[in-house]
C-alpha cells in the first residue's frame, strides 16, 4: 500500500540526491531525511531502498 508523504513541502534534498532519486524512481516525499534540518542524504536513499527491499512501509 502507498505510504503517506512525510511532508507537504518540497523535500530538502541536494541536486545530486535529487538526480539519484530520479534515476532510482524514488519519490522524495516518501523519504525521511536524516541530515541537518531534515535534509535527505544519499544514505537516506540507501536506507529507503533497503527498507523497500525488505518490504517495510515508510512514514509510520
Amino acid at each position, binding site marked *: 500500500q502507498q505510504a503517506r508523504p512525510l511532508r507537504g513541502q518540497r523535500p*530538502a534534498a*541536494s541536486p545530486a540526491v535529487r538526480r539519484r532519486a530520479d534515476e532510482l524512481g524514488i519519490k522524495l516525499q516518501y523519504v525521511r531525511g536524516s541530515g541537518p*534540518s531534515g535534509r535527505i542524504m544519499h544514505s537516506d536513499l540507501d536506507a529507503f531502498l533497503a527498507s523497500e527491499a525488505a518490504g517495510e512501509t515508510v512514514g509510520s
Partner: protein
Amino acid sequence: SGGSYDYDMVVLGAGPGGYTAAFRAADLGMKVALVERWPQLGGVCLNVGCIPSKALLHAAKVIEEAHEMEVAGVTFGKPKIDTEKLRGWKEKVVSKLTGGLGILAKQRKVEVIRGIGKFVSPHEMSIANTDMTPQSTVLSKGENAPGEGARKISFKHCIIAAGSESVRLPGLPDDPRIIDSTGALEIDLPKRMLVIGGGIIGLEMACVYDALGTKVSVVELTDGLIPGCDRDLVRPLEKRIAKRYEKIMVKTKVTKLEALKQGIRVTFEGEQAPEPQIYDKVLVAVGRSPNGKKIGAEAAGVVVNERGFIPVDKQMRTNVSHIFAIGDIVGQPMLAHKASHEGKLAAEVAQGEKRYFDARVIPSVAYTDPEIAWVGVTETEAKAKGIPFEKGSFPWSANARSLTLGRDDGMTKVLFDPETHRVIGGGIVGPNAGDLISEIALAIEMNSDAGDLGMTIHPHPTLSETVMFSAEAFEGTLTDLYVPKKTARAK
C-alpha cells in the same frame, strides 16, 4: 551506429544549448551531427550576444574605473578610443571562443553541417546551403526560403536548439540608423542615441555607448527599468545613469519612427513624453522572439505555439517523443546557462538516462554598471503570489571591499522562508554581482538556511561577505551594522 538512420542524434542550431547537447551526446557515445547556418559555432550568445556585449562592457568598465581613480590621485587622460581596434579585439575574443568550439566538436567527432535545417519528416531534415552570418540573419528576408543545394539527413533523435532573434517592431522604416543588438555590437558610434527598451540587453548596450561617449536616452514602456527585477536592486543603476544619460523615460511609448536626412525622428506618447526628438541612431531592444516557426516543425509533427515557442516536458521532450527542444526556443528565461543546462539534460535523456529538469533556480544577471543579479524568489514575486518571506540585507556602503574599490552603491539581500529559515531567493547589485549570485544559487539548491550562510567563514575583505552579513542581519547576529530592536532568532 544510427541504425537505419544517418545519425543517432541531430542537433539543430549550435548556440550554447545546441553545442552543449551535441557534445554531451557525443560523449555518451552517439553519432552526432550539429546543423548550423552560421559559419561559426556558438549561436547568438557567442557571436552576437553574451560574449561580444560583455567584452565591450569590460572596456566600458575600465574607462569608468580609470576615470573614477582621479579622486584617488591616479589621473589618466581622456582615453583615445579606436573603435575599429576595439571591434577587432571584441571579434578576437569571440573567434577564440567559437574557434575553440570548432576544435571541441572535432575532438568529439561531432559532424558540423553548415546550412539551414528544416524538418521534412519526423526523422529527416533537409539542409540548404547558405552564406548567412550572425550579422546578416536579422536583415535577411530569405531565411524562410529553401536554399540551394538542399540535401537530406536522417536521425534517430533530434534536439531543436534553434534559438531566438531580436523582435522587430512592426512598421519600422528600413534604415541603417535603426539597429538591433547585433547592429549595436558594431559600435559605429553616434552622437546621440535612443535605446527603445529598458531591459537587460538595452541597458547593457546603453552602458557601453555612454562610456564610449554617445549621448544616450532610454525609453521603456512599463513603469521601470529591467522589468521582473526588484526595484531596490535596480535603484542604484537608475541613480547612476540618471546623472549620466540624457534622458530616461519610463511609462513612455514610442509611437512613430521616421527616417529623416538629419536623423531618426521619434515620436513619444505618455506622461513624461517629450516632444518628438531626432536621434543619430535608434537601438530597438524590445525583446527576443523564438525561431520555432522557421524550422518546418510541422513536417515532423512537432507542436509550435502561436508565439513560436515549442512546448516541452520536464525531460525537454516535445510532443514527438524522439524530438527534444531546448534553450530560447522553449521559453523564458532566455538565458545561455538555461540553454546549456537543458542541452545536457536532453542529450542524457535521449541516451536513456532517467533525468528531469529539477534545478530549482536559474540566476539572472544584468552586466550593467553597477551589475545586477538575482536568483530564486524575488520580493516582487513573493508579494504577488503571497509567498511568505523575510529578508536580510546589507548595504555595500558598510562593506570594506566595496569601499576599497571606490564604490559604495551596492546592496545584497537574501530572502528566507520565515519558518524554516531556508534561503529562497536573493539579489545583488554592485560590481561582480554576477559572480557573487552563484553562492546564493548553491545555497538554494543545497537547502541552506540562514545559519549555514552566516556561519560559513567568508574571506575578508570581499564582496562575498555581504551574503554572509545578509544572513546574519536576518538572524539578528550581525555585528558589522547596527540593526536596532531585532532580536536574535531561535531556530
